[in-house]
């Protein structure tokens, strides 16, 4: 997993609520393409017009936001299915972080498994960030729609220089900063796993159905 430390990048607002993972990656694309081939199909139902050309209204197709590595989203982002392809698809577009007031719970976990940072902020802060980003794209603006995310100090810096602190659980932060492999880490606890199973086998034998 690629470590995540500081990200200075373009950010694009997608201010829709309840964006679900069926939108982020349609199931037939997940079925037909591999983990690293999903980028072109991310947000497919919204991103393209029926003739296959880019939908100019779609947030990431707007020239000002092209190449964004950060998505700023609204309430309950990536709700719905457990498909990890939703993370792989946004990663395939180059996204490394998502900021939202709340997330679908499985997507939230899946992000950490792939080195993508999901940042949960108060909705008022998210709306303010989205406003600043939009403002920065207007003619005559002297800033760019960019954010700076520092995982070590847990801050997001907006185009106007405002710093917002976010919470991220220590264990998740460490893993992201170092790019750790969770399976390898857990396997170092094999003794504890075996001890737990031995105890459970005695106390609750029905948890271990004999092969039938």
């Amino acid at each position: 997993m690629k470590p995540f430390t500081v990200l200075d990048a373009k950010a694009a607002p997608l201010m829709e609520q309840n964006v679900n993972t069926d939108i982020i990656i349609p199931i037939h694309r997940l079925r037909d393409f591999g983990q690293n081939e999903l980028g072109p199909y991310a947000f497919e139902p919204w991103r393209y017009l029926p003739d296959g050309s880019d939908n100019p209204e779609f947030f990431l197709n707007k020239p000002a936001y092209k190449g964004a590595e950060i998505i700023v989203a609204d309430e309950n982002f990536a709700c719905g299915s457990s498909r990890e392809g939703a993370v792989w698809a946004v990663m395939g577009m180059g996204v490394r972080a998502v900021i939202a007031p709340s997330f679908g719970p499985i997507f939230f976990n899946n992000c950490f498994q792939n080195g993508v940072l999901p940042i949960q902020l108060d909705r008022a802060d998210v709306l303010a960030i989205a406003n600043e980003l939009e403002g920065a794209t207007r003619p005559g603006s002297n800033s760019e729609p960019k954010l700076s995310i520092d995982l070590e100090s847990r801050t997001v810096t907006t185009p106007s220089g405002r710093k917002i602190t976010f919470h991220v659980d220590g264990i998740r932060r460490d893993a992201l900063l170092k790019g750790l492999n969770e399976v390898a880490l857990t396997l170092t606890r094999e003794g504890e796993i075996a001890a737990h199973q031995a105890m459970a086998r005695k106390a609750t034998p029905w948890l271990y159905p004999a092969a039938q």
Partner: protein
Amino acid sequence: MPGQTLFDKIWDRHVIADLGDDYALLHVSRHLMHDGGGRGLQVLKDQGYKVRNPDLTFATFDHVISTEPGRTHETLKPHAARLYAMRDMAKEAGIKLFDLGQPGQGIVHVMGPEQGITLPGVLLVCGDSHTCTHGGLGAIAFGVGATEVVHVLATQSLVQRRPKRMRVTFEGKATPGVLPKDLILALIGQIGTAGGTGFAVEYAGPAIRDMEVEGRLTVCNLSIELGAKIGMVAPDEKTYAYLKGRPYAPTGAVWDQAVADWRSLPSDSDAKFDVEVTVDVNKIVPQITWGTSPEHVIPVTGKIPHPTSVSDPDKQKALQSALDYMGLTPGVPIDQTKIDWVFIGSCTNSRMSDLREAAKIAKGRKVSAHVRAWVVPGSENIKREAEAEGLHKVFLDAGFEWREPGCSMCLAVNGDTIAPGQRSVSTSNRNFVGRQGPGGRTHLASPAMAAAAAIAGRIADVRSI
């Protein structure tokens, strides 16, 4: 010390190591796999790991298989290789797989409870968001991502953060025509699809105690549509009666020991929940969704809402785009909406009780001439039991099609799709844009409501049929 919740009791007994910050390394007592999960076994192999406890993992085929009568692995040619590969890898690893045509095969969330693999007090995971279904038996059950699946296979454990606890109390009694699906849809309408985000939800109250186990599975199934990864119902005598004699349930003295233990699981009377919600079941009438999120739900007696019925401009925008996609006009009674398709099936509503409710409506009536209606039983066992009971005859005589068990048109990844612009009433759990096929329009409802719609040719109040 305050009392403990059902959730906390089960969580605590699965903690292998406290990792701080509310995180724990949890033992996984049951792991289920479906045909989308073959990748996990492959990745495991590629990374040089082994399945740590193959006896605690159970697999079946459901998502990408054909549901055409007489289907085989080869009916959907492009997917056959995937099925064979998974079958081979499961065999090599020593994982029990319920294959096509065998008792036990079916939708993974139907298979677990039906086989007695899901038990009260277990911590069960599967690479599928509707794993919350299994909570209906008094288990902690939740969906995980593909990388977490690999972690479970390799270590039989998972790193998770303890969620907050919410209790939803369903007060009162369901009136005739109102099914468990209506209760959970009404709750989603009440608190929204993000209302349960960050919580493990316990469903409680008289209406839940009155409900049979299959209904509780339906209620728990839609927890993820509430934003909650986990939904659960405390086990009781109905739970034990349901499980007794199932293939993987304990027997003899161990059964007695297990039941004694399960009786200690329900939340203590002084247990504290972070949030309490109450639903008045007496007031619930049959529900139907009109939009593209499960929270876009109204009573079937209602009218299609105006976007201006909410004040938040972002929400107004969302309602307008849902109306546009669904091709509906605000202010029109929803029961005037003509439909093209009916789908009775999915891990929400494909069990015997669901088929019986639908058959009651279908019996002696005819599916409307312009409607195509499918019944897809949730498992091979359900299919056989329904056929033994003659339910398939009731459906076939009424003009429904009777299919082989699988996910089918719930997800439409196996080619079971509706055409762009077509409208379906479905007993599944997601009415997302394109869920039943690109451009397809889905209205979620109970199995009785779906059958009523098939007969009427439009969305209809089952109580008027």
